[in-house]
């Protein structure tokens, strides 16, 4: 995972270079209509991001998603749906974000951990075991 992360920035730059050389990034003549994002950016300095940053962040997060088993067909739409701030956060700290899984499947716990959680459930500090009645306090 670390190796992947180290590779992802240089790879992104390479991809970007290729895109630029293909000329697909020629900016269109600027639209006269000032976009809503520009108006919002005036209010919030942190919203001042560039298209370039978004493209780079996209590549980083894309590699994480693909590495975690997402289909090539769906990865682009998953990226599109994320805001610039969310993509930024994921590109920097992907592994730190929790993934909600649920709790009803096989828990491979050391015996001590199992007992610990049983006790904390009874004490009302955790909510792991459905068979432990969660009475009100």
């Amino acid at each position, binding site marked *: 995972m670390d190796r992947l992360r180290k590779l992802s920035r240089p790879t992104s730059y390479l991809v970007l270079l290729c895109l630029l050389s293909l000329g697909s990034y020629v900016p269109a003549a600027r639209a*006269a*209509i000032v976009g809503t*994002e520009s108006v919002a950016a005036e209010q919030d300095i942190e919203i001042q991001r560039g298209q370039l940053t978004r493209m780079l962040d996209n590549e980083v997060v894309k590699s994480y998603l693909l590495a*975690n088993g997402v289909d090539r067909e769906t990865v682009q739409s998953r990226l599109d749906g994320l805001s610039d701030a969310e993509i930024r956060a994921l590109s920097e700290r992907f592994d730190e974000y929790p993934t909600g899984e649920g709790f009803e499947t096989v828990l491979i716990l050391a015996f001590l951990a199992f*007992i610990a959680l049983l006790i904390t459930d009874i004490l009302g500090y*955790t909510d792991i075991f459905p068979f432990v009645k969660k009475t009100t306090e």
Partner: protein
Amino acid sequence: MCLLARICVVASALALAACASTPQTDAVLAMQMDGAPSVELTAVPFFPQTAYQCGPAALSTMLAATGEEVAPDDLVSQVYLPGREGSLQFELMAAARLRGFVPYVLAPQLDTVLDEVRADNPVLVLQNLGLDWHPQWHFAVVVGFDLSAGVMILRSGEQARHVIPLRLFERTWERGGHWAMVVMPPDRLPRTAQSRSYTRAIVELERLGRLREAATAYEAALARWPDNVVAGIGLGNSLYALGDLPGAESAYRRAAQRHPERGVAFNNLAQVLADRGRLREAEEFARRAVELGGPMRERFEETLERILANARRSPATGHLRSPDTAPVPAETYRNT
């Protein structure tokens, strides 16, 4: 140390930890909150989760509560990460946007969650059901509470009605950073929505090209916050991108009235008037924008030049529309 001793040490440490404070619950129970002391959104459907897929199940629940029927299986390809055997909270938001809804992260306060439930909005929450050193992350949906009994009611995992003490809820929720979100259909606002952050959330919908929904959401935002400039311009921009020039003109006029000190409203109004062939009026507003200046002054000057060039080309009627003033697709806004 023998096993029994180890268990005792752990148990006592955990007992102390279990007395960890729950300040938000204390505050809620102590003060007289406005609003109903107990609510249950019984109409919210239940989708039992399958292995590891509380994300899809929770999101289905939220969407179904608004009338959008989507089975959890159909969300798996959008929100499930096989390599992590779970779902990222951001991807739940992305999936909601791609379906034309506005996901909105709430303030990290228990009373905020209760207020939303009182307003008939279920709340999707991230919980760590385990311990800090052995987390068990989970998504569930809050559908009710009872303050006199001190409980929270959730659709959670395989339990349609998971009733837990408020304190327990707070502890599991606190470990996840008090993260909670609502998923709004375009025409409704969360009860606790903040003007700036909610309009930012609508901008994401516009960015994705969900223009009809964005326009509806901006209208709803303007009904609550008539002075919100992002909503005012956003409405005009969404209608413009949809090709609804009369609607866009009317929206920009409203924005210009509300914000006569902002060049952007006049600039965009000038553009749509030019598109509709009313070059003299367009020129007047374009000039006003340039006069007001500001950081986008250069853009306003470009607009004015283009309008003047058009006027020169056909002085009599001013009906000529040059290609680069045609309504632009929403993606182009990313250039601006």
